[in-house]
């Protein structure tokens, strides 16, 4: 009777429904106490601002006095989404190009690098090397690349050595967006490599052995074994980085200051930031945020739907 197991058994036998209910209630009270800090936080810093963001998107308000807030209906969305304005035609296009471009480069690069690292010794060392930019602040990344892009910087120095004329990577409007896109890709490649190498490790060795017996070369193995089996990890990387790319603008503030030259690198989240905190147009800015949020939400839900469908396929 002194062992824990025996006492658990006795307790179960002796517990009347009423006593069990009492224990559950106590556990429920404890649970909500444990959850209290988190729930309180989410009320103040998540639900409240989220509701506020929706209200702001439908209102006309400048300044800081809540008393002057006026209902504006969908007027803000009309302004933001009008096809003559810069938001849809220029800024949203920039946003998509920036996100697509950086995801394409980072995914292509990380698949190649992860596939190669998987074949080498010192894999941990290589992964950490590619992961370094993820640890650095965006201020460091942005300024270093700004420096390297300058006429007297490293990249133009190399180009000049090769007999190519200097390029105004950040000053020429046709190069500026591709230039910041490359930096975004460079900074996000390390995280993708980590997830993809984990995905590669999960592919059973015997598939490769069987393919080798059948006389497949590395190229065949990559296309018919590695890539299809890597698809879940690859899809995850693609979608999370695309969502990240759609909302990131810290790099653009650091590298171009104002989204220039002449709006060439202006993206939706940055335009929202400027409208709000430079011009105090809370309504317009919030409508922009809402448009971008709906786009991101649609992509997120698509990802969840694809993941769930795959789950049903395999189970």
């Amino acid at each position, binding site marked *: 009777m002194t062992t824990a197991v025996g006492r658990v058994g006795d307790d179960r036998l002796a517990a009347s429904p009423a006593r069990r209910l009492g224990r559950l209630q106590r556990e429920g009270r404890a649970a909500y106490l444990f959850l209290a800090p988190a729930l309180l936080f989410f009320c103040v810093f998540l639900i409240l601002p989220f509701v506020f963001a929706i209200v702001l998107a439908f209102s006309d308000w400048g300044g800081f006095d809540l008393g002057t807030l006026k209902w504006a209906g969908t007027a803000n969305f009309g302004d933001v989404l009008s096809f003559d304005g810069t938001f849809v035609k220029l800024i949203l296009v920039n946003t998509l190009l920036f996100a697509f471009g950086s995801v394409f480069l980072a995914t292509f690069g990380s698949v190649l690098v992860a596939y190669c690292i998987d074949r080498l010794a010192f894999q941990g060392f290589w992964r950490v090397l590619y992961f370094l930019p993820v640890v650095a602040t965006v201020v460091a990344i942005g*300024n270093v690349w700004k420096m390297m892009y300058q006429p007297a910087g490293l990249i133009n120095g190399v180009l000049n050595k090769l007999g190519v004329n200097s390029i105004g990577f950040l000053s020429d409007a046709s190069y500026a967006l591709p230039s910041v896109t490359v930096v975004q890709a460079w900074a996000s490649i390390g995280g993708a490599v980590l997830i993809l190498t984990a995905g590669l490790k999960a592919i059973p060795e015997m598939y490769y052995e069987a393919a080798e017996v059948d006389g497949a070369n590395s190229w065949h193995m990559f296309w018919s074994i590695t890539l299809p089996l890597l698809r879940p990890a690859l899809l995850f990387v693609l979608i999370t980085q695309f969502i990240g790319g759609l909302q990131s603008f810290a790099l653009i503030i650091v590298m171009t200051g104002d989204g220039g030259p002449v709006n060439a690198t202006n993206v939706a989240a940055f335009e929202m930031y400027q409208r709000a905190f430079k011009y105090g147009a809370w309504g317009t800015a919030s409508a922009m945020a809402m448009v971008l949020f709906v786009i991101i939400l649609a992509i997120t839900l698509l990802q969840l739907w694809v993941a769930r469908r795959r789950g049903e396929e395999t189970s």
Partner: protein
Amino acid sequence: MRRHGKFPWFAYLVVILGGVAMVMPFLDMVMSSFKGAGEYGVIPYKLLPESFNLDNYREAFSQLELPRLFRNSVIVTVSVTVSVLITSALAGYALAKLRFRGRAVIFRFILATMMLPPFLLLIPTFLIMLNWPLAGGNDFLGRGGDGGLTTSLLALILPFTVSGFGIFLMRQFMISLPDEMLEAAKIDGANQWQIWRLIVLPQTKPVAITLGLITFIGTWNEYIWTLLISSSDPSLQTLPVGIQLLQSFLDPDRTMPIVMAGLVISTLPVLVVFLVFQKYYVRGVVLSGLK
């Protein structure tokens, strides 16, 4: 080992070339931080400085008030990290091990919180901080004051004190702790707080290091929110914001090497922490990727 033997020369070529592209910017950062006046911004470009003099570092200390920036960065980062660890471990335990009405709903809610992108909450959170009741001269309805909470370091800490991702990570880890152990403690008369504090908490060490590291690095490097809050009150600047603002003061050809010196100083602590604990960080990223 068969996977390794195939075409390693090609793999080495790709990985080394890519590795150079990864390291070059950092190398350029360090080298430029030693370049003196008349050495930086000169064509043709040279990677190596003429001498490794420390003028830019001295300049960074005098122009930047580095001790103040450093202090702010440390206070904010440590507060946020400790708070995220504690609140995640508390909520994660309730969601993993306690039976109560509404558990499934709350867990789904926590997952949903991760879908709200930060930029969406930027404007309303700023306005909430500005109109925080009974702070910065505001009355109990948050009116009338001058800046509300935005004039305090709390403005940089409070909005990050709880993390949905952190709760999720802790819950996933704690769910695998054996029930028998908790049951035995309950039989011995321990209450839920004691079980959490004495039995569960010590076992979460590996996942706590992972979460702590991810939070530490993310907070140390945070830029947009700090830029916004400190734009009206420069005394709240952290390292990244302070260093970035130095740029707008002086001629870029003169300041860039000083900025680089500041960046080397501000990157070093995170780099050291990362390299020491990189095993845990890597695992955290992989865990978050394969949920």
